[in-house]
């Protein structure tokens, strides 16, 4: 998404465009190749990563052994629980920002199998976090990912890890050339505002369905069946660490519907976070620090939206500051880092399905807090109508930004599922999620993401659904899959 150009004139008739135009006012040309760029992300607030209190153990710890060690910067010793244990968080009180963030993330779970090589080893500084920044394959920190695609039939997944050709955008343009006619009544032309000149129906928007592949990572986002627009957004990319090993990144954001311009919020947040990560990782920044910084950058980007005048369509007497959730994951050959604010989640699904899957994030939600505080059991909490009210989000009206980050050292290959509640509402537990993830998701992540979106739509598609899949370990560039 980050490489989509902002068009200044219609590619078809050269008519000057205004930002926000979805169709050319003169010739009706579909401009969906270029989303309006969000404002520059200015870092204005000094948000401190609050050290959250350690949370109680994840309900229903996964049996197994090995450990997921939660790190803190500078590798303050994480109690190694050894095999058969649930990972114990570092109460890291070291002075660095990440350690406090790390301490806020106290996800307890196990990723490995008994006797796993990684078992019990506390996470150390990321491998190869030293050294010069290697040249970027694309010459920019932005991933050489493909353009956004539209509803194309599933391609034969050739899946060589090579960067898809950006010129595929031409395909999309050619495909949308014929969309000047209304898709609802097939009789009217589409006007400059994206509505049919005959029946008035809104035309499909670029964000209604988005797919993107970036190296080994893929993401799919869909409007769902019950919402009129897609307020989710994502950003995926890949990069190379200073030691030459690959890293893959995915960020998924879910706009808060009750706020103003949730779609703008999620787009700005996912872009800012993705760009921050892809800029920081090649410099050797510890992925967990980078994740923390990315969430802070995303929050600044969303906060900045509150200062912009609302678009003409959406002025309302009672404005809520734009807001969204964020969840992200970074995979490197030895490390899996997650970060989040809100109720979007990350799941771990091992390739070997005999090993247990796990949920790696802890929702900032009313229900999760009730359970964490011991006031209700999970069944009671999730039955409450307030269950899904979120208690943490990005936005100018957030009480306090509490970016949670955690890092894991999986001992076996698997796939990381980064998703919004539009998906996990239909696969809540790790086991259900693992069942929904196709067996070949690690090697065909785009296909896997499509399947998961399909799972949510089959379930009713009550919300926007967005999912990104990252294989672990990330295949090295140009090599075969892991």
């Amino acid at each position: 998404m980050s490489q989509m150009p902002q068009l200044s004139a219609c590619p078809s008739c050269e008519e000057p465009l205004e930002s926000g135009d979805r169709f050319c006012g003169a010739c009706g040309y579909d401009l969906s190749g270029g989303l309006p760029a969000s404002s520059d992300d200015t870092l204005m607030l000094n948000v401190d990563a609050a050290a959250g209190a350690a949370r109680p153990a994840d309900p229903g710890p996964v049996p197994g052994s090995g450990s997921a060690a939660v790190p803190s910067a500078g590798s303050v010793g994480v109690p190694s629980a050894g095999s058969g244990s649930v990972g114990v968080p570092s109460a890291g009180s070291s002075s660095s920002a990440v350690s406090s963030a790390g301490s806020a993330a106290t996800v307890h779970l196990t990723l490995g199998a008994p006797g796993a090589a990684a078992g019990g080893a506390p996470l150390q500084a990321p491998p190869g976090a030293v050294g010069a920044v290697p040249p970027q394959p694309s010459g920019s920190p932005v991933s050489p990912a493909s353009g956004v695609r539209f509803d194309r039939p599933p391609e034969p997944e050739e899946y060589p890890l090579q960067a898809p050709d950006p010129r595929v955008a031409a395909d999309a343009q050619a495909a949308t050339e014929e969309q000047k006619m209304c898709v609802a009544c097939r009789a009217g032309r589409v006007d400059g505002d994206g509505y049919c000149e005959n029946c008035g129906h809104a035309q499909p928007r670029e964000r209604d369905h988005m797919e993107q592949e970036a190296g080994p990572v893929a993401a799919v986002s869909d409007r769902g069946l019950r919402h009129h627009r897609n307020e989710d957004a994502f950003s995926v990319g890949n990069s190379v660490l200073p030691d030459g090993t690959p890293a893959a990144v995915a960020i998924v954001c879910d706009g808060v519907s009750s706020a103003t311009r949730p779609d703008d919020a999620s787009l700005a947040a996912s872009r800012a976070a993705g760009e921050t990560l892809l800029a920081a990782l090649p410099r050797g920044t510890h992925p967990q620090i980078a994740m923390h910084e990315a969430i802070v950058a995303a929050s600044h980007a969303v906060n900045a939206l509150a200062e912009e005048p609302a678009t003409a369509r959406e002025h309302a007497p009672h404005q809520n500051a734009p807001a969204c959730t964020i969840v992200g994951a970074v995979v490197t050959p030895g490390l899996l880092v997650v970060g989040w604010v809100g109720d979007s989640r990350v799941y771990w699904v091992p390739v070997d399905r005999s090993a247990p899957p796990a949920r790696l994030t802890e929702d900032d939600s009313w229900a999760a807090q009730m359970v964490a505080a011991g006031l209700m059991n999970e069944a009671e909490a999730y039955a409450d109508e307030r269950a899904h009210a979120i208690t943490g989000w990005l936005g100018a009206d957030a009480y306090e930004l509490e970016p949670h980050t955690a890092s894991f050292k999986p001992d076996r290959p698997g796939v990381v599922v980064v998703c919004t509640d539009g998906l996990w509402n239909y696969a809540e537990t790790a086991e259900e999620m693992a069942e929904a993830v196709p067996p070949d998701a690690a090697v065909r992540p785009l296909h896997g993401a499509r399947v998961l979106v399909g799972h949510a739509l089959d379930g009713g598609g009550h919300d926007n659904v967005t999912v990104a899949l990252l294989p672990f370990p990330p295949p090295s560039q140009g090599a075969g899959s892991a």
Partner: protein
Amino acid sequence: MANFSKSNVPAFSMDVYQNEYLPEGGREVNAIVTVSATGGGTVGSAVAAPHLFTPGQGPSAAVAIMVDCSGSMDYPPTKMRNARDATAAAIDTLRDGVHFAVIGGTHVAKEVYPGGGRLAVADAASRAQAKDALRRLSAGGGTAIGTWLRLAERLLSPADVAIRHGIVLTDGRNEHEAPEDLKATLEACAGKFTCDARGVGTDWEVKEVTGIASALLGTADIVADPQGLAADFTQMMETAMGKEVADVALRVWTPVGTTIKFVKQVAPTVEELTERRTEAGPRAGDYPTGSWGDESRDYHLCVEVPAAGVGQEMLAARVSLVIPQSDGGVQNLGAQGLVRAVWTDDMTASTSINPQVAHYTGQAELAQAIQQGLDLRKAGDFDGATAKLGRAVQLASASGNADTAKLLAKVVDVVDAATGTVRLKAKVAEADEMTLETRSTKTVRVKK
């Protein structure tokens, strides 16, 4: 007809206030469209927009002042004297260069100044001559307002000007003309010029005066005390001099399958426009709004759309401002508003009522309740009148329409405004009742 260059048109802007969310199966879309014109030179310079006209200048305009000279104007004689003074004050307010005429009205219309079927051009000399001519005005004869308007139309139409405006002053009922004749005249004059109407004293018919103003897109008011005429005429003429663009129409486009349930002006006064639609191409219609200076008005648009499934979105109406040209073309004034419909299963979203829509729905009901209450009171149905006027008191109080609340309090004793509990006053001054009826359509804007 209108001969002004594009640059003279003030800048129009449009805002749409609505709750676009409908429940599954929901069909009715309501929106308040606020239209503001800025850039006017003479009125309300609070807006820091670049002024198109320097003070003392303005678009070319022609004005006809129609003064009632029927026999009743001499009872009391101060009425005729005050009408003369008021007309003189209005003439003094004319900008140099404005075309004008004074018409004396009885059962026939007579040119008082300049005469000969012409218009005078305002300057120091013509203003003095006109005021001189006013001395010849004397009372005697009947009242046939339609003839006055027809003469005004004959005088104003040939003028090569941007703004054509009339002012009617009457003190009595339109007795010497069939109501159908007045109606036909109003239809003939509509769109030719705009006209304000004033009733002086208390012997005139409210519905006649408001009907003239409504048909000719002007204002109506009562001047119960003839002494207030000069100030009112001056203010009216100042407003007329502030107009910069005439014949503006609200163009509403709706998609196939939709029905426009109503289009109403709701601020500054309630004015029903639904029946005044002129077709303007496929699925579009124009609603007249008259001439504009530096001002802002609100319109309530209600559209019925075909039901659609949850998650669907459509454009229910596209509203724009145009000036239809004599050659069939239009000049588009640029401002545009979109009224949308989005179906959702979020009950909170679909059941909330937009505060602007709620407010103006209440203001329209307020105007209706006053009119119905006063009609019932005249008809002797005191229970019905009490109920309607009680409701009006409640609405006026809740919406902060203090002016209307004050007028109501002169007609009913308010026991409890919040619940609308009132008693009809045993004795009501005729002027108070007529004032309430004339001003019942005045609305206030939403408290921000």
